[in-house]
Structure formats: structure tokens, C-alpha cells
């Protein structure tokens, strides 16, 4: 058993040591408004979903407004200047999520376009 564990560990070490991924394609991340995000880029990449998840519950269920993390602020800063959206080709959200094959559920309900003005219609 111990031997098996050691061999598995050795296999992982060997995989990590191989620089096979160096040439793999990377997502194109286009920063439309360069400047300071609410946290360093590394932290945002790892934890943006956690930040938004906790914020959404505080805002939705307790009515707390003006939180540091806000989906609307993400859009206002990161929406493409060409399409006005964080989705579509080169869309800030979609580019990475397509690369990582992580489904984006936010935009089923939230408006992905910055500064979108809603209109009504006769029922």
C-alpha cells in the first residue's frame, strides 16, 4: 500500500515536471478599462465567484447595498467597448469561461450590457 502511494506521488511529480502545457493556448483577456480592480488580479481570478456569491446573498436576502463586490460594477468596468457586453467574442467573462468550460449562469437573469436602458411594453 505504501509502495502504491509512493508510486502515485512519483507519477504526479513526473507529470508536473513535464513542461508539456507551456505551449497550450491561453484565453485572450482584454482589459477595457485598465486600472485597479477591487483586489489583485490573482485573487480576482481565483475568488471572484466566492466574492459575488456572498455579496449576492447579503444584497438579495438582507438588503445590503453598496457592497465592494458587485456584478453591475464588474460589467460597467469590463464590458467590451465594441459590443457593450461581457459576453460574445472577446467578452471578458465568456472568454475565460469558455476556455475553462465553466457554465455562466449569471446572465440568464442579469443584464450583460453596460448602461443598458430597459423599456417596457404594453401587456
Amino acid at each position: 500500500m505504501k509502495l502504491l502511494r509512493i508510486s502515485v506521488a512519483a507519477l504526479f511529480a513526473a507529470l508536473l515536471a513535464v513542461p508539456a502545457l507551456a505551449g497550450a493556448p491561453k484565453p485572450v483577456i482584454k482589459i477595457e478599462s485598465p486600472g485597479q480592480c477591487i483586489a489583485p488580479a490573482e485573487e480576482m481570478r481565483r475568488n471572484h465567484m466566492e466574492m459575488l456569491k456572498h455579496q449576492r446573498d447579503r444584497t438579495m436576502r438582507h438588503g445590503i447595498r453598496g457592497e465592494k463586490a458587485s456584478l453591475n460594477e464588474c460589467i460597467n468596468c469590463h464590458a467590451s467597448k465594441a459590443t457593450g457586453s461581457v459576453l460574445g467574442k472577446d467578452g471578458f467573462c465568456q472568454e475565460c469561461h469558455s476556455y475553462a468550460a465553466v457554465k455562466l449562469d449569471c446572465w440568464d437573469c442579469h443584464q450583460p450590457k453596460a448602461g443598458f436602458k430597459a423599456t417596457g411594453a404594453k401587456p
Partner: protein
Amino acid sequence: MNEPQDKVQDSGRRGFIGAAAAAGAGLGVAALAPGLHLIEVAGATSATARAAGEPAPSTVRWGMLIDTAKCASGCDACVQACNTENGIVETVKDARQGSQWIRKIDLKDPKNGRTHSLPMMCQHCENPPCVDVCPTGASMKRADGIVLVDRHICIGCRYCMMACPYKARSFVHQPLDTQNPEVPRGIGCVESCTFCVQRVDKGMQPACVEACPEGAMLFGDLNDPNSGIAQRIAREATTQVRADLKLNVGVRYQGI
């Protein structure tokens, strides 16, 4: 000899008291002693936006009073304002499946021919049946009495639509792309009137109240005895629709 020095000390003391009073006035609070306040305004009226980071206060209960004597048959300004504010655009073939947060109802008493017209929407019950039946906890009542659907955990079972005695909730059948950025809504979720929670949190009135050309709708804090709505309810006869269900609704009607 000591006079100039005294003056300096005095002005310093006055300056301090003045600054403290100004700080108190800025907060809308006149402090009599630590923890004891003469006037406390923050969060009590709809004219005040809640400070960032503050949760909805449980001391407030938002409500609405609708005077049906002023509500004109054929006028749907409230419905239009609601649709514009909340980004509701009809995209379904079957109109019965369209979202309807507020609707106009014309009633006629067949015995004497008397007619009423009134807007009907989520009544924001104190004991909401939709919250009772929700299997996931998505249907919820906020601390200030506003009944909402947390779409993050709504599974679209529509049990709340069955439970609601006011037929106030709608289900979104189709993908949407015309939402107001401040009012997320989407496919597979149940939705209903939110009292324009995004406006109320900013100290504004709901869109329908602001749009009513007759001023038939009054919005305010039912718990605050000084608010316009509480004073009118204390003074005049008002009705809760289906009061027999003992839901203690937040929307009251006059003249029905």
C-alpha cells in the same frame, strides 16, 4: 491678564461643541446622551436612502394604500411604469403566459351596478403563503416586509403561484435579454412585484406610485405612526383583500 487666554479656551470649547452639534445634525440624530437620541430619522422614511452596508431595517414595514375612488377605469399608467422600470417586455405568443407584476382589474357589483377599478399586485403579506410553501427557501420576506423571490435558488416549481390567493406571481417561460441592470429576471424563475426594491433602497417611491396621474397610490412605512400611510390608515376605513385569510397584507385598499 488672564482674559485673552480665557477667550482662546472659550472659543476652543465652543468650536468643539459646534462641531459636535454639526456632526449630530449631519447624521440626522441629536444625541442627548450616549445611546439616547432625541430624533432618529435614518431608514424610517422613504425619503432616506439606506447607507451602504446597512441591512434592511426590521423596524420598517413597507406598505401601500390604494384609493379606488381615484383610480380611473381604462388607465394603466401604473402597469406601464412597472413594465418600464422592471424591463418587462412581452415576448410570448400566449398572453396568459406573459409576466404581470401589476394588473388593472375592473369590478362591477351586479346588484347595484357600482363599478371599481383597481390595480392588483403582490400584497406583501406579513404571513405570506408563498414563503410557507416554497421548497427551497427562494420565496422570502425581507426584514422590512417586502416579499421577494431569490432567483439564485428558485427551481421554478411554481408551488408559490398555486399558493398565492392574489394571483400575483408570474413564471418566465422564455430567455430574456432586456432586463434592467438593477432588476435581474430570467427564464425558469417565478417573479412578482418587488415594491421596486431597487428604488426603495435608494429612498425613492415605487415606479407605479410615482406614475399614477391621480395620486391614488400612497407608499410608506406602516410601522411609523408619523408616516402619511399610517396616519391615513388610522383615520380612514381601509380594506385588506381577503382579510379572512389573516395574512395581514401590506397593500390596503379604500372604497372597495
